[in-house]
């Protein structure tokens, strides 16, 4: 196993970079981070639209959520792969395709998390904000969302951990992320599939576990902050 690490660590970490495009673990991390950063505002918008008092906004979003939630991610990736170029008019590349699929797929899940978080904020909070004279957006922004975010944190982490693992499906469209690289390595070595995939598993575990721990730390700090006496 050490031999394996010694021979292939660089390939595993960055793919064929700098000669070729970036790949491996670095690509997985970049893809997952971008997917998180982009899907959160997207999910927030969808979630707020779903809570909107206007049907014209609420209904299309509800349909989108039900449709996307009813199909597997793999299918969303295929759709992005085959349909996106015909819609946008130019080739989006494997990375762009995968990113688009992840943002759409995670965005609709996040939308439901946002909805749950906002609805978990006690009604009295909204009433207090509105009775001070704050309008809908101000009370959302200054009163409801900061509290909703706290309710949402565990579910958000859940979703983000999923996102990291979902990047492995980029394999199917030939994106050179870490799973793809691992199978390449396996193809080169041939005799050590158990070790190769064990290392791959450990890599995902370390990524996801550290994210969970960081979130847990954040939760505890929040709880302390809310009880501060001065």
């Amino acid at each position, binding site marked *: 196993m050490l031999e394996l690490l010694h021979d292939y660590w660089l390939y595993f970490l960055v793919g064929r970079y700098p000669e070729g495009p970036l790949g491996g673990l670095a690509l997985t991390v970049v893809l997952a981070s971008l997917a998180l950063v982009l899907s959160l505002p997207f999910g927030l918008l969808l979630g707020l639209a779903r809570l909107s008092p206007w049907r014209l906004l609420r209904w299309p979003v509800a349909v989108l959520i039900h449709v996307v939630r009813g199909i597997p991610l793999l299918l969303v990736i295929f759709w992005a792969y085959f349909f996106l170029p015909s819609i946008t008019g130019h080739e989006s590349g494997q990375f762009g395709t995968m990113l688009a699929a992840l943002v759409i797929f995670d965005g609709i899940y996040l939308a439901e998390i946002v909805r749950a978080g906002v609805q978990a904020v006690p009604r009295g909070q909204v*009433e*207090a904000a*509105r*009775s001070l004279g704050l309008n809908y957006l101000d009370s959302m922004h*200054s009163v409801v969302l900061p*509290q909703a975010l706290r309710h949402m944190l565990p579910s958000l982490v859940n979703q983000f951990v999923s996102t990291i693992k979902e990047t492995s499906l980029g394999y199917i469209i030939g994106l050179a992320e870490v799973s793809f690289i691992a199978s390449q390595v396996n193809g080169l070595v041939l005799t050590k599939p158990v070790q190769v995939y064990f290392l791959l598993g450990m890599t995902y575990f370390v990524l996801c576990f550290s994210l969970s721990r960081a979130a847990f730390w954040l939760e505890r700090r929040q709880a302390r902050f*809310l009880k*501060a006496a001065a």
Partner: protein
Amino acid sequence: MITFDNVNKYYGDYHALREINEHVAKGEVLVVCGPSGSGKSTLIRTINRLEPIASGRIAVAGQDIHAPGLDVNAFRSHIGFVFQQFNLFPHLSVLDNCALAPQRLRGLSRKEAEERALALLERVGLAHKAHAMPAALSGGQQQRVAIARALAMQPPQMLFDEPTSALDPEMVGEVLQVMRDLAHGGMTMVCVTHEMGFARSGGPRLVHGPRASAGAGRARGFLCAAATCARTAIPGRYPQPVQRGRMNERMMVWLCAQANGMLAPSGARYRGGARGARSRPGGPYHVTHHRRSFSVAGADRRRARRAEPGGLS
């Protein structure tokens, strides 16, 4: 200042507010008492449009607050509202709770808003807690902050929806003291309460509700029972015992006091609404004057004393 004109409200088939006509003048304090379910909270919440009404008109400073097209946010910012459950914003410090709305709506700088907030916290005796989070405060302290938060918008009138009902008895006094100071300072107030200690210190005017006109005797029965939260109707004094279920629908008692009557001596025993009763011509309400504020018999009086160590008397 606040005028109700034939206000009706329904929850489904249930007629929650029935032909409400009332006027609260500037500087007046209206205390609304009554049993659970009699529509007290609904009534006060219609004043700043937290609840819609079915018919009638509610005007605050001459403006019909349920008029379509009204900028309700601007309007609400001139009506202070204090909730039973305080509803402080738990993610903001005490100071930020009070400084948030003035910054957003009154165009104050952060510094100005914090200065104003601090002055108000001083007034409710909590300046030393300015940087604490709400969860670190007792119920009474939270409610005082909530009052300061509402005052930070400098509203000409304040509404209190059972401000002491969620408090432990030993904390009721501090909140009532703040409210009493406000009333003394000439604030126009409407207060829904079960707190007979506060109602007791109210004075000259007693208004009672819709079905009272059905018959004077029955009205008195309702009046007494409702005023004491349907528990301690004085036996033998009133012609008919009041059934709670029926009363919810029928009865609501309003006690109304001039600000300067708030601290009137309260040793006198309540003698019943009929004495000196006078019907307001044309209106469904009976307006009752009695010379002194009333105190409540039996258990409620003891409860009021316990709840409010300093007392008013």
